[in-house]
């Protein structure tokens, strides 16, 4: 059974526009015929520009919103019909919304979650101890949440959504505002979580680092439609249309623009080239410059995932 099954999901919002006595209804189609299957234990990123429909999608899948029409099951349950039952099986983390009590320690909040999720005390203690070790929060679990750094707080936020051992965890912008070290730690933890507990991870993020580090599959949504759904590794290969080449010559060399080859930067010994792979055969080009010039060093660079995704957004 799939962890998530979605077929022809549509969501339309109706807004009032205009002045008090001349109001008009404006309809916005937030999701258009979305179909998606996610396997148990899969790590999937749902990405897209602002207003693409990511949050709407996550809110429908967690039972917060009703769709206009369509079918969806999460852990075998219809989210908008079985909201409470589903909540026992999923965890949610909204990066910009805290689930912890600001003035109390994280441990105090965790104790409340024991009652919310009706977990037997010994089961709860065992799981909490395990998560404390996995997330390395021993040092600050008893400090008031208001005194924690954002990175420490996010680790506690995620623990609070994992105490009931959910089959799926939905993370909406989990690394927003974190510094690079805190981001890396959090990504490591989530990867370990997926490996150790086989928890399905469904993530939305604007940070491509999250996607590359965590998600084996990427779904790109734009204007309410899925425009790309493929393995994250393949995404770059499929959509890379340009490569950068850094060449260092052994002696001063003059290098000029050619068809499909653009010189971005140069000096006597170095040149930075951008190649349009639709016009240039990369292998032949490389062989040609190696045989033609006296080369000391060469470095090939793919565009970052961020550049790839930006180009996809622009095209679609």
């Amino acid at each position: 059974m799939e962890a998530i099954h979605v077929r022809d999901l549509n969501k339309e919002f109706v807004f009032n526009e205009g002045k008090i006595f001349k109001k008009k209804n404006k309809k916005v189609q937030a999701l258009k015929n979305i179909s998606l299957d996610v396997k148990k234990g899969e790590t999937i990123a749902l990405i897209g520009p602002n207003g693409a429909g990511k949050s709407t999608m996550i809110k429908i899948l967690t039972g917060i919103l009703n769709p206009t029409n369509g079918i969806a099951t999460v852990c075998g349950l219809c989210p908008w019909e079985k909201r409470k039952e589903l909540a026992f099986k999923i965890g949610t983390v909204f990066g910009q919304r805290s689930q912890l009590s600001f003035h109390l320690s994280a441990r105090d909040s965790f104790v409340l979650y024991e009652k919310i999720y009706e977990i037997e005390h010994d089961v709860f203690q065992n799981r909490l101890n395990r998560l404390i070790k996995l997330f390395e929060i021993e040092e600050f679990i008893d400090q008031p949440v208001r005194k924690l750094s954002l990175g420490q707080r996010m680790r506690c936020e995620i623990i609070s959504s994992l105490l009931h051992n959910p089959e799926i965890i939905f993370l909406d912008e989990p690394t927003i505002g974190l510094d690079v070290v805190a981001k890396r730690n959090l990504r490591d933890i989530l990867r370990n979580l997926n490996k150790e507990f086989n928890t399905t991870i469904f993530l939305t993020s604007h940070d491509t680092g999250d996607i590359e580090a965590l998600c084996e599959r990427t779904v790109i949504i734009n204007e309410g439609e899925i425009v790309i759904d493929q393995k994250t590794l393949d995404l770059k290969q499929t959509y890379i249309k340009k490569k950068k080449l850094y060449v260092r010559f052994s002696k001063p060399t003059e290098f000029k623009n050619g068809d499909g080859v653009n010189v971005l930067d140069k000096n006597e010994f170095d040149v930075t080239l951008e190649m349009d792979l639709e016009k240039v055969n990369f292998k032949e080009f490389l062989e040609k410059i190696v045989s033609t010039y006296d080369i000391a060093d060469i470095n090939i660079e793919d565009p970052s995932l961020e550049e790839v995704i930006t180009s996809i957004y622009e095209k679609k």
Partner: protein
Amino acid sequence: MNKRKINRKGNLNANFQWLRALVKRNMKIALAYKSSFLIQVIGMFLNNLSFLIVWYFVFRKFGDINGWTFKEMFGLQGVVALAYGFSIALTYGIRNISKNITYGQVDKFMVLPKNVLLSMIFSEVQISAFGDIFEGGVNILIYFIITGFSFEKFIIAIVVIILATLLWAGYLIITQSLAFWLSNSEELSNSLLNATLGAALYPNKIFEGIPKVLFTFVFPSIFMSSMPVDIIKDIDLSKLLLLTFFAAFWLLGGIVLFNQGLKRYESGNLVGTV
């Protein structure tokens, strides 16, 4: 560890344990700042006391108002302070329903496996309401001392205060749930509360005609203040029955309205969902 072992009782006991833990957590937050707690409780006590001082001078000048004297004001102040205080002390989230709806904060309650309305109203405590309860208790005590204590009256007083508390809860849920239909109605909800609370602090004998109808059925102040005092004073069971029906009507109406509104929220007219 992969196997979930959760004791999903799904019964009243589980919900009771959850609410108890929620209240315990909220009280822990409130008591984290002890001096603030005391200042708020004492402040509210003094605030309510000022009403009695005003009424003392009013009755000293005018004697009585349609049969009501200053001693009845102890009963009225006691009932209003106790019922309003009980309706928000441990359930102050009831006053923030409108704000939660307007700012899309209902989401955090909807992802929990619990009743959304209960989760929301039990999410906060109001410290100053303990001042209301303390002051209300003192007033009722004084009322019994000066009008004569009887066991019958005492039981009736407990019942009417419970009913008035439920009526307050229903009224607050209804006025706060308007935000499902009217965007950003926080101010409106507060104005409706102030209108009702303000009128509740006057003896109903001063209202006649349309204002009396208004403060009985639209803003149910009379059911929250003067009528309970009359019931205690006269041990009037027919009025008690009327209050029971009225409190049940407003509370059930509030629950129905909230749940209907929640469907609208789910169907997505909130800010920032796209």
